[in-house]
């Protein structure tokens, strides 16, 4: 068989496989990400059936997948939403970072991955999957709940924080030590700040530049701009993903709505290739020793996420049941954690970090949405009602005495 035919056969089989997994995920009512990761594990290095010819396509496809994931994420948020969330929920965002990044960083140190590895693992445990969380809120009919804006602003702040976190991580991965990396970190942060300023202040101008009535022209302009800025960002060691995210933020208004429509199918395709690639390049044999740390980390950081949501909802004046709903909705980790792990391993960190991240994401992304259904049960509603009644009685007796 000649190579050209083999490439087509392999890629076709892979995409068809992703299609089957996505179908299964839809049937089960879960995100397709965990199934694609498992599929990748099965066929990759040390798996059942290693891939030979299609590897190059998958590798480049995965890179484009990360860029499209971040571009669409940026397009989803308008500058006013970002600034509004930042104003309203700064404190919640800060608490979120402290509670959820610290456990990951500690485990990173414990496993002997050094400060940069600790920072990478901290990022992996910090970021909630905005895609999974938003879909879950929608599926469970919670969009009109009073705690929902609290949940969404935390997710938005995390995503915005990534615009600073990823360049810092990238800069440190290049230098691999905290001291020598300081200058490159400062340069990276300065570049991000300038682009972010342009994106937030002059988004109308940027949007006008790429605007076209024709879907075709719009697709080429936005995709081209995103890839170009990503490439330039990567050249400046700012991380390609962040470049795409900032381009996404700069595009707003009707341009964003149209661009979202034309780019979503592309994103779905290449993001799946990225998750597949990540699964493929992770050796299942690395997974076994990482299982216990992954479970422990998942349990600990799902608990801290619940606490984060609980505290944020409490300060927004939400009742007991709503606080638990907010906390549980934040537990799934997903695309960002995988992006961070991918960056870290590509930057030369220990390969078992990828295995740990895979197991960790698999656990939280499956357990999170399942646990989130608990507050809708009757028993839970009775329990939270009793707690709230007790609390009110205590308050009343305290104020009367």
């Amino acid at each position, binding site marked *: 068989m000649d190579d050209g035919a083999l490439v087509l056969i392999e890629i076709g089989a892979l995409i068809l496989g992703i299609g089957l997994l996505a179908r299964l995920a839809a049937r089960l009512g879960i995100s397709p990400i965990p199934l694609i990761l498992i599929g990748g594990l099965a066929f990759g290095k040390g798996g059942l059936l290693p891939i030979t010819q299609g590897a190059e396509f998958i590798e480049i496809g995965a890179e484009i997948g990360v860029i499209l994931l971040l571009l669409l994420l940026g397009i989803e948020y308008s500058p006013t939403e970002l600034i509004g969330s930042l104003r309203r929920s700064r404190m919640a965002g800060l608490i979120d970072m402290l509670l959820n990044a610290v456990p990951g960083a500690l485990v990173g140190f414990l496993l002997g991955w050094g400060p940069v590895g600790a920072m990478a693992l901290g990022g992996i445990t910090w970021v909630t999957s905005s895609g999974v969380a938003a879909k879950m809120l929608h599926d469970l009919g919670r969009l*009109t709940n009073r705690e929902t804006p609290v949940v*969404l602003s935390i997710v938005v702040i995390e995503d915005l924080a990534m615009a600073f976190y990823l360049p810092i991580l990238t800069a440190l991965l290049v230098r691999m030590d905290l001291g020598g990396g300081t200058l490159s970190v400062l340069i990276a942060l300065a570049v991000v700040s300038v682009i972010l300023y342009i994106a937030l202040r002059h988004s109308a101008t940027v949007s006008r530049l790429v605007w076209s009535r024709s879907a075709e022209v719009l697709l080429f302009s936005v995709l081209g701009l995103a890839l170009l800025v990503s490439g330039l960002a990567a050249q400046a060691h700012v991380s390609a993903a962040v470049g795409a995210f900032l381009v996404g933020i700069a595009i707003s208004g009707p341009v964003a709505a149209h661009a979202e429509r034309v780019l979503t199918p592309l994103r779905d395709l290449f993001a799946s290739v990225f998750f597949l690639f990540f699964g493929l390049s992770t050796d299942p044999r690395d997974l076994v020793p990482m299982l216990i740390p992954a479970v422990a980390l998942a349990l600990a950081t799902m608990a801290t996420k619940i606490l984060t949501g609980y505290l944020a909802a409490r300060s927004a004046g939400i009742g007991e049941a709503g606080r638990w709903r907010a906390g549980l909705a934040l537990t799934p980790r997903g695309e960002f954690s995988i992006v961070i792990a991918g960056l870290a391993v590509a930057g030369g960190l220990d390969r078992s970090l990828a295995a740990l991240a895979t197991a960790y994401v698999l656990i939280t992304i499956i357990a999170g949405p399942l646990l989130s259904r608990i507050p809708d049960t009757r028993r839970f509603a009775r329990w939270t009602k009793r707690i709230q009644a007790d609390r009110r009685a205590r308050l009343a007796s305290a104020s009367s005495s």
Partner: protein
Amino acid sequence: MPAHVERAELPGIGVRHDINTEAGRRLSIINFRDGGRELAISDEDDPDRAEGTLALTDDEATALSEVLGGSLILTQMAGLRDQLAGLHMEQIPMRADSPFVGRPLGDTKARTRTRCSIVAIVRDDGVLPSPSPQDVLDAGDSLIVVGTREGLDKLVRIINGG
């Protein structure tokens, strides 16, 4: 009396408008980015969550607004009387989870913080006109407030614990 509509951005999803009805329930309308709409009514037991949601197509939303439109115009005409040169009157319900339940009215510092006047407190057992700062607020009370639009919006946030 004009209803108070709260607007909340749902980043990446759309915009939500909440109307707190006189009967103490919350009616929410979500306008999705991609054009869909959803109606929801709050749960009586847990006011934070929705008891049920209802997706509306474009045509259904148009039909609903047409049916409601007639009564809306009447309400607006009646409301004109209350609006003297930028002054508005509003009824703010005390929710059970408000931080001011069981505390004296003076604790809200409504006048100094928002320049709004609380002209009466409406309770199940009647109306308390010109309340004093010592009068204790209770869940289910309604505050009748006069002030500017901005002042009223700010006071609603204060009362709701924002």
